């Protein structure tokens, strides 16, 4: 593993891997996280190396719990870290501000990955930089994998020096980017500590609360003074127009300016909270204009505006007047902004090129993300639609089944947040007599769905929605991390899996369990549950087929695959247009232009559901070469 390579070596790391290396170089001893892409490779990498390195790692049941566990370690003197995607921070948010006030003993880094452009998310493009301001925590922002390593390491030191938890914020194009990284010395982790009672530190009731509040304000002031100049850099250049930037936008600015042959001075801000007033003031005082390059919200820009009032009232400030507040930046977005300000042209007309590309791609078969071949969720969706039809309301949630929002499934009528499908359905069920089915995944069930189901039991009114738990025994979407129902931990230890049906019963709801790959079982269970009043849950259980295939391969076995009997196939199109497994292909075969349905043996994962839904019985297990 490159992440454990020798000091001094140069290796190519993913931003997320570089963060892990930085934490190892800081001697992190305790890591807890709930996976969320684009941050998922942080816990995944820790999970792989924890035993070897000798640190404690866990996949917690959600981000809040992870943050709390890491707090306990940091309070007890062990360097700790937690990581999450932007929405994950919303879940943890309840517990974070009190810890910012009380502070920590050992270094504590809270890593968060935003997702401008929503490459790995639905819902929103929230800018978590606001949290640093609201919670009064310092925030460091790297630009590339090398800085991911350097600033993670430094974040631990700052955290420990000022006894305050520190945010390390990245975005998708940093965490999921690769880059050459020079490795430093790893520190042996300290994994044992002791909690010392200390009312002066932890007692956060009034009036001592205000003492803690003043203390955190003072810490931020000191951090601004000590690191404001040190962490932020001015790259000198020519002219009276300057660039102020941070994060990945710095990487775009650097390359765009090189392409344009421009050399303006650049101020790069790494410590984006607290931003150094003197640093910004010094940079802008002799400028005529600045362009602030930052994705999403104009946080730096607003700050510059505020400082300019005193430091340079005539300064012209560009930023969100030329670039969008939504979506991500890239060279094609940054270059036109620079062209406008500096009056210099690159000579490539991006719009013209885009038009040519659009014309070349006209009427091209679209390709969108799709549930994998063999996915148990496709089978469950198919059966639910058979029983509840197109008119029922289908509440969505967060996980692979989010892809049920797309054609031809169309069974995620709304998507809010982890577990929210069940919560929102409760309200619909009370005010409306529509049939409501709320889908939720297994990992999401443990993460956030339990209180909402409990609420059905507590406030048992109106038409109670049916909850369908899509249980594939793993957190699949983010890369197959274990959860309480998986039977193993992030350290690879075997544990007794928690059965979802046991939890549901304890929460006071009726529960049925069905094999997700059996249409017959699913339909029977769904029909029975449909007639039941009150809280009711179907656990549709079937393993992620990607993992099943891996398990087969590990045993030296090939997964059975299916094929279509051309004699029996009546070309009705149910398998491609209603069931829509990507392994089933409809193609026109030359020379006669005949339409043929077939199964791609390279991607079929042998779930056997197509065999059950084919009205002609035309699908059967394929014989492999050499088999009789």
């Amino acid at each position, binding site marked *: 593993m*490159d992440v454990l390579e020798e000091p001094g070596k*140069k290796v*190519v790391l993913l931003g997320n891997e570089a963060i892990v290396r930085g934490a190892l170089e800081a001697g992190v001893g305790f890591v807890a996280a709930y996976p969320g*892409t684009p941050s998922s490779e942080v816990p995944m990498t820790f999970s792989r190396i924890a035993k070897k390195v000798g640190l404690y790692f866990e996949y917690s049941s959600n981000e809040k719990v992870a943050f709390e566990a890491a707090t306990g370690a940091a309070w007890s003197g062990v360097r700790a870290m937690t990581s999450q995607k932007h929405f994950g921070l919303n879940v943890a948010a309840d517990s974070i501000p009190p810890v910012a006030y009380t502070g920590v003993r050992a270094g504590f880094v809270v890593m968060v990955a935003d997702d401008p452009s929503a*490459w*790995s*998310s*639905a819902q929103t493009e929230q800018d978590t930089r606001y949290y640093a301001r609201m919670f009064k925590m310092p925030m460091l922002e790297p630009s*590339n994998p090398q800085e991911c390593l350097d600033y993670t390491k430094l974040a631990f030191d700052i955290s420990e020096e000022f006894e305050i938890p520190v945010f390390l914020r990245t975005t*998708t*194009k*940093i965490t*999921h*980017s*690769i*880059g*050459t990284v020079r490795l430093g010395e790893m520190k042996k982790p300290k994994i044992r500590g002791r909690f010392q009672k200390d009312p002066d530190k932890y007692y956060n009731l009034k009036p001592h609360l205000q003492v803690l509040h003043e203390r955190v304000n003072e810490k931020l002031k000191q951090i601004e003074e000590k690191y404001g100049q040190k962490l932020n850099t001015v790259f000198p250049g020519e002219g009276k127009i300057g660039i102020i930037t941070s994060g*990945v936008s710095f*990487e775009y600015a*650097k*390359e*765009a300016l*090189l*392409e344009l042959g421009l050399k303006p001075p650049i101020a790069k801000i790494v410590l984006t909270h607290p931003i150094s007033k003197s640093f910004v003031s010094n940079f802008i005082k002799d400028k005529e204009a600045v362009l602030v390059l930052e994705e999403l919200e104009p946080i730096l820009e607003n700050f510059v505006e505020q400082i300019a009032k005193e430091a340079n009232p005539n300064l012209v400030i560009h930023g969100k007047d030329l670039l969008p507040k939504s979506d991500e930046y*890239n*060279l094609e977005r940054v*270059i036109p902004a620079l062209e406008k300000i500096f009056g210099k042209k690159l000579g*490539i007309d*991006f719009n013209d*090129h*885009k038009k*040519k*590309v659009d014309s*070349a*791609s006209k009427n*091209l*078969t*679209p*390709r*969108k*993300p*799709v*549930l994998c071949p063999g996915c148990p969720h496709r089978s469950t969706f198919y059966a639910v639609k058979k029983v509840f039809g197109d008119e029922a309301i289908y509440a969505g949630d967060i996980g*692979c089944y989010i*892809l049920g929002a797309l*054609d*031809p499934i169309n069974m995620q009528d709304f998507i809010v947040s982890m577990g929210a499908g069940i919560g929102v359905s409760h309200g619909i069920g009370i005010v409306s007599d529509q049939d409501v089915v709320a889908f939720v995944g297994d990992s999401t069930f443990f993460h956030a769905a339990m209180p909402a189901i409990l609420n059905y039991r507590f406030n048992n009114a109106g038409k109670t929605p049916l909850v369908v738990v899509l249980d594939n025994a793993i957190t699949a*979407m983010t890369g197959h991390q274990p959860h309480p129902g998986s039977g193993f931990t992030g350290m690879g230890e075997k544990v007794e899996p928690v059965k979802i049906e046991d939890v549901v019963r304890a929460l006071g709801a009726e529960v049925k369990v069905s094999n997700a790959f059996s249409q017959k079982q699913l339909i029977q269970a769904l029909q029975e549950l449909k007639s039941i009043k009150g809280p009711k849950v179907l656990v549709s259980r079937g393993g992620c087929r990607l993992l099943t295939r891996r398990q087969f391969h590990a045993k030296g076995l090939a997964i059975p695959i299916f094929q279509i009997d051309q004699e029996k196939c009546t070309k009705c*199109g149910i398998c*491609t*247009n209603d069931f*829509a*497994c*990507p392994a089933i*292909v*409809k*193609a026109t075969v030359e020379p006669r232009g005949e339409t043929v349905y077939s199964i*791609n043996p*390279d*991607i079929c994962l042998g779930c056997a559901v197509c065999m059950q839904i084919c009205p002609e019985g035309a699908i059967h297990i394929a014989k492999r070469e050499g088999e009789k």
Partner: protein
Amino acid sequence: MKFDVMLTGVGGEGVLTTQVMIARAANIEGHYVRGVQLHGLAQRGGVIPTFIRFGSEKEVSSPGIMQANADLILAFEALEAVRATYYARKEKTTFVINDYPLVPIYASLFNIPYPTMSEIVRRIKPFAKQIHVFRTSHLGREKFGSAIFGNTILVGIVTGLGLLPLKADSLREAIKVTAPREMENNIKAFELGLQLGKEKRSARRVT
């Protein structure tokens, strides 16, 4: 020096592993490497545009390639080569395409048939300096039992053709680290591709 490679294909095809392989080879030769993989939702049967950029640290900083600026585009899935034209232009870009259709479900759903290979080439032509087409997935399945080996064969081919400015030895070393479990077959697949590429060098191009 700056060299921009784009890989494109469909989630599950092994595009990311190939990215790591090429990035490691570039690192072995002392290049500064940048790049980005776009996954998440796209992991599930969606398009995975993937970039590897290498050269001097001064010239390479953005993780993604600029529009119309790829030097080399490897399309692991034929149709996706067309969508990759966003990163291509006639004076600069060479396409190497694996003729291996993964027909999206939308072809049948929306009745938009999957284009023929000649149709694909026709659409790409205005954006390509050269276009090479190989059936490496078929070859991978035939010779090594799985279509996935087509990826390493394709990397071998572009090396053999002299289209990827990295040494065969660096790629061999990178393959060993990147695919330790299937190392033997991957090395063989690479050598096969290398040979095919070298032979093709003197042969007529598809375009």
